[in-house]
């Protein structure tokens, strides 16, 4: 028992030292990118597995971005699928109708980016009601938004109406998914560890106190909604070009519920939790596929049990050191050292 404990400690310390190295993240990212390019090019990974990895990536983007609103800002948005739909349709319309056939692969990142920007614009509009209403009323606003998006798409024949949109090439490849996933995690991590991000957190903790501590709460909410919806749009663009087919029903409230489950499973206000939640949920659903319908009976039960025993999710309100910026830790250490060397005469 004691030996197991010491062994655990030594390995934990080794892991901590390793992850605290400056080259840790660059190494991991390079390796990941190299692997995804190789897997894409030489097909040594089963296509089915590749597809699952793509879905894991898309779900990580969705979960991290929704966690910004629901976890870090403490609102309850159920409209994430709506933003995803905006991104998916924008990107697909560009690749199907606007881009010349030969340049599709080259221009694909632009299509995804355009999807993200379109979703961000809508996100800005949804942020406005959040100035005044909170909690359940904001939940309804996002719910209504999600249903309006679906309803509008069903009524525009140019985008296929209720039948949906076809004709996208399979442009979502492993390297692109890896790139966008890493980017979304990195950007949201950056935001959270900045004073704007702390502003987002302070809105969750106590909005009135935040305002009285000079936090421009409106600015903070706009930033959070824009960033969150931007990445939901990115995920939508990737999703559309992985499945090569979209219709309005894919982006209804059930899709939002899926993302909500991943957020709260992994844990609120945690980057690591979002990644864990998305990975576990997606992979578990695949593993349980042989169960057929009973899979979706079993999963919700698991969620309920988890909520009862861990109401804040696996990593709720905690973060691994992995995602804390090294510069921030370095500043604090530096200050501590200086203080030790020259203890000042504060009262």
């Amino acid at each position, binding site marked *: 028992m004691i030996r197991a404990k010491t062994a655990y400690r030594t390995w934990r310390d080794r892991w901590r030292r390793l992850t605290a190295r400056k080259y840790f993240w660059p190494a991991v990212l390079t390796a990941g990118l190299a692997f995804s390019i190789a897997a894409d090019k030489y097909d040594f990974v089963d296509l089915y597995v590749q597809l699952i990895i793509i879905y894991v990536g898309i779900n990580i983007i969705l979960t991290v971005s929704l966690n910004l609103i*629901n976890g870090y800002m403490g609102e*309850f948005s159920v409209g994430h699928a709506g933003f995803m739909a905006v991104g998916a349709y924008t990107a697909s319309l560009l690749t199907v109708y606007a881009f010349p056939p030969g340049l599709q692969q080259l221009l694909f990142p632009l299509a995804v980016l355009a999807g993200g920007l379109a979703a961000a614009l809508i996100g800005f509009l949804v942020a406005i*009601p959040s100035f*005044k*209403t909170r909690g*359940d*009323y904001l*939940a*309804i*606003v996002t*719910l*209504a*938004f999600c*249903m*309006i998006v*679906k*309803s*509008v798409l*069903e*009524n525009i024949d140019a985008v296929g109406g*209720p039948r949906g949109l076809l004709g996208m090439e399979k442009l979502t490849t492993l390297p692109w998914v890896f790139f966008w996933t890493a980017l979304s995690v990195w950007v949201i991590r950056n935001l959270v560890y900045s004073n704007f991000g702390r502003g987002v957190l302070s809105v969750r903790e106590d909005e*009135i106190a935040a305002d009285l501590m000079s936090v421009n709460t409106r600015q903070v909410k706009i930033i959070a909604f824009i960033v969150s919806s931007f990445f939901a749009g990115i995920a939508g663009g990737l999703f559309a070009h992985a499945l090569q087919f979209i219709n309005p029903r894919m982006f209804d*409230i*059930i899709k939002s*519920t899926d993302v*909500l*489950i991943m957020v*709260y499973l992994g844990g*609120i206000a945690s980057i690591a939790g979002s990644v864990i939640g998305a990975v576990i949920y997606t992979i578990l659903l695949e593993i349980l596929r042989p169960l057929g*319908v*009973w899979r*979706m*009976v079993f*999963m*919700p*039960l698991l*969620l*309920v049990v988890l*909520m*009862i025993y861990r*109401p*804040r999710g696996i990593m709720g309100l905690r973060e691994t050191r992995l995602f804390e910026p090294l510069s921030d830790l370095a500043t604090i250490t530096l200050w501590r050292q200086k203080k030790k060397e020259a203890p000042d005469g504060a009262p």
Partner: protein
Amino acid sequence: MAYFFQQLLNALQLGSIYALIALGYTMVYGILTMINFAHGDLFMVGAFFCFLLAVYLKLSFVPTLLLSMLGVACLGVIIERLAYKPLRTAPRVSAIITALGVGLFLENFTLALSPYPKHIPPLLKNVTWTVGELSISSLQVLVIVLSLGLMLILDFVVWRTKAGMAMRAISWDKTIVPLMGVSVNKIISLTFAIGTGLGGAAGVLYSLAYPVIDPYMGIMVGWKAFICAVVGGIGNVRGAMIGGFILGAVEILVAAFFPSTYRDFVAFTLLLVLLILKPYGILGRPQPQKV
């Protein structure tokens, strides 16, 4: 003009069903400040109970309605005890997610047992009366009258009985009520029983009016009823009724005068406008902020 009244009647029918479901949301919210997102699925279970009782036990309308209500009420109380009670002190969102999980469970469990949509046999003889150009079916009248009757009974319970007073007291201040010798657990169970029982009744009435049922029927209807509760001012029983009738009227009237695919779009846009104008619903009041 007759067309308008005809549609108004349809609106009353749909609205009364929405209102019955919205009551369940609002009662639970009022007492626990928790959104029971499984409520729409309990409504669906009500419809399936109706199917089971009517088809396999060949019961007539009244026992079917009563037993379905009772069954759903029991289920509601059990769900509260097993899934929600342990989370009363947890962050509010955990309870909401649990409710979403319970809802998913009910949907898919029903789906696993009954993969195809079911057809409800006509439990009552449907007579159609013609008044001028207006045709009124006995079914429509029954749905409206029964819903209104149930709502009146509920209103009486909430405002005129001791249990109702305890409910209102708990929704006002949860910490002080136990000191008055009221068992909070009992009152919460009672609230769940009544709220979900009304949802079960709505399920039966809905499946009489629109006789094809499937396990996912509760999702959209449930979210819409939740919207009704919010529009009326969540936590407010009379508000939920008003919200139900408003949404029913909007949906039917939009479908009557525009292409039916515009129904959801117009309904939800109106809802957004209303919430921006009255951020706390029609009968809701903002909680005063203490600083």
